[in-house]
């Protein structure tokens, strides 16, 4: 009894996960899709780097943006990019299902990765899929994930006013905005989020997928 008195309980303080912060969004248009993410990578209250890309091209017309634990994001991106099945490029809805399955495969030790997938569907219309960490997904008109997600979603709701997915007959969730207007909206919401979210800032990477292909734009955000 005397021997056990001095033994202290050691609580485990090591976690296999870390949150590297940042925000990702995607907006689906009639014939385009805009995917954007900030380029700051943080840990705790420190900045690891100001120009880290959270966006990955998974297929010809399919782009994924992920926030969360970037080591898991990198592993997930490698896992998905390696799939070149049936000698043809995977369509965006097919890749969406694959991503869901890949995430659920690790249901009991998840990828700490909050994803938005964007691209063009088989008819050339914009599509966005939003995920949780274990693969639950839904096709939506727009989505935001990450530390600044809660700041951006109300503004996107206000500007894009997507109809409820529960309505019958099913209504088109893509926004009637022009591509340039959608890109301007993305720039505005990131500027706002960078003001109030400490993990969002430094730079903004915008990828636009349309019939002509994939183009990338980069601009500066607040560095504080």
């Amino acid at each position: 009894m005397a021997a056990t008195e001095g033994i202290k309980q050691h609580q485990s303080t090591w976690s296999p996960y870390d949150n590297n912060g940042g925000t990702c969004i995607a907006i689906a248009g009639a014939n385009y899709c805009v995917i954007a993410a900030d380029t700051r990578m943080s840990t705790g209250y420190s900045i690891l780097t100001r120009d880290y890309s959270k966006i990955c091209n998974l297929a010809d017309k399919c782009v994924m943006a992920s926030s969360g634990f970037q080591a898991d994001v990198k592993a997930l991106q490698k896992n998905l990019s390696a799939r070149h099945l049936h000698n043809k490029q995977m369509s965006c809805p097919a890749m969406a299902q694959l991503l869901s399955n890949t995430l659920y495969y690790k249901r009991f030790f998840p990828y700490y990765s909050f994803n938005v997938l964007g691209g063009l569907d088989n008819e050339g219309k914009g599509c966005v899929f939003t995920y949780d960490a274990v693969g639950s997904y839904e096709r939506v008109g727009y989505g935001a994930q990450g530390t600044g997600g809660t700041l951006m979603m109300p503004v996107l709701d206000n500007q894009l006013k997507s109809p409820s997915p529960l309505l019958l007959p099913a209504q088109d969730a893509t926004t009637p905005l022009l591509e340039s207007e959608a890109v301007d909206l993305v720039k505005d919401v990131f500027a706002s989020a960078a003001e109030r979210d400490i993990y969002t800032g430094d730079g903004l990477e915008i990828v636009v997928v349309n019939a002509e292909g994939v183009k990338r734009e980069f601009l500066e955000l607040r560095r504080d």
Partner: protein
Amino acid sequence: MSIFEYNGSALVAMVGKNCFAIASDRRLGVQLQTIATDFQRIFKIHDKLYVGLSGLATDVLTLHQRFAFRHKLYQLREERNMRPETFASLVSALLYEKRELAKDFVVAGTAAESLYGACESMYKPDMEPEELFETISQALLSSIDRDCLSGWGGHVYVVSPNQVIERTLKGRMD
């Protein structure tokens, strides 16, 4: 569950050109149950000073009573109304916490994060009362629609040098 999330609330105030606006949601809940849909969180201290209180509802009422009491004593002694800066010091003293006066907007409540995003995007300086009303209403409604614990519409007060307009907003009633 945090004590600040027990009742649910959303509060926002904005500065305009020679005017200000203050708005809140109207829900009073007990965790996930809604108890009242007309709960007042904004109180008038005097014609040019309104205070909005978020968080635990019982403390909202208690603090309102204490502020009203202290202000009435001040009026008796000083024979005038308290200035906002003075009132801010009173709030600081009662809460043991330093409050700064904001130049643009202030948010509070369970919907605070959403409100930060919405206000930051929609706010611009020196808005006239009508435009200020539109802006604060849109920011409030968009934000409370993304918060389960706030809702059932909104109360907006727009205060100008000569008049106060009080309006009730109808939003998603959930």
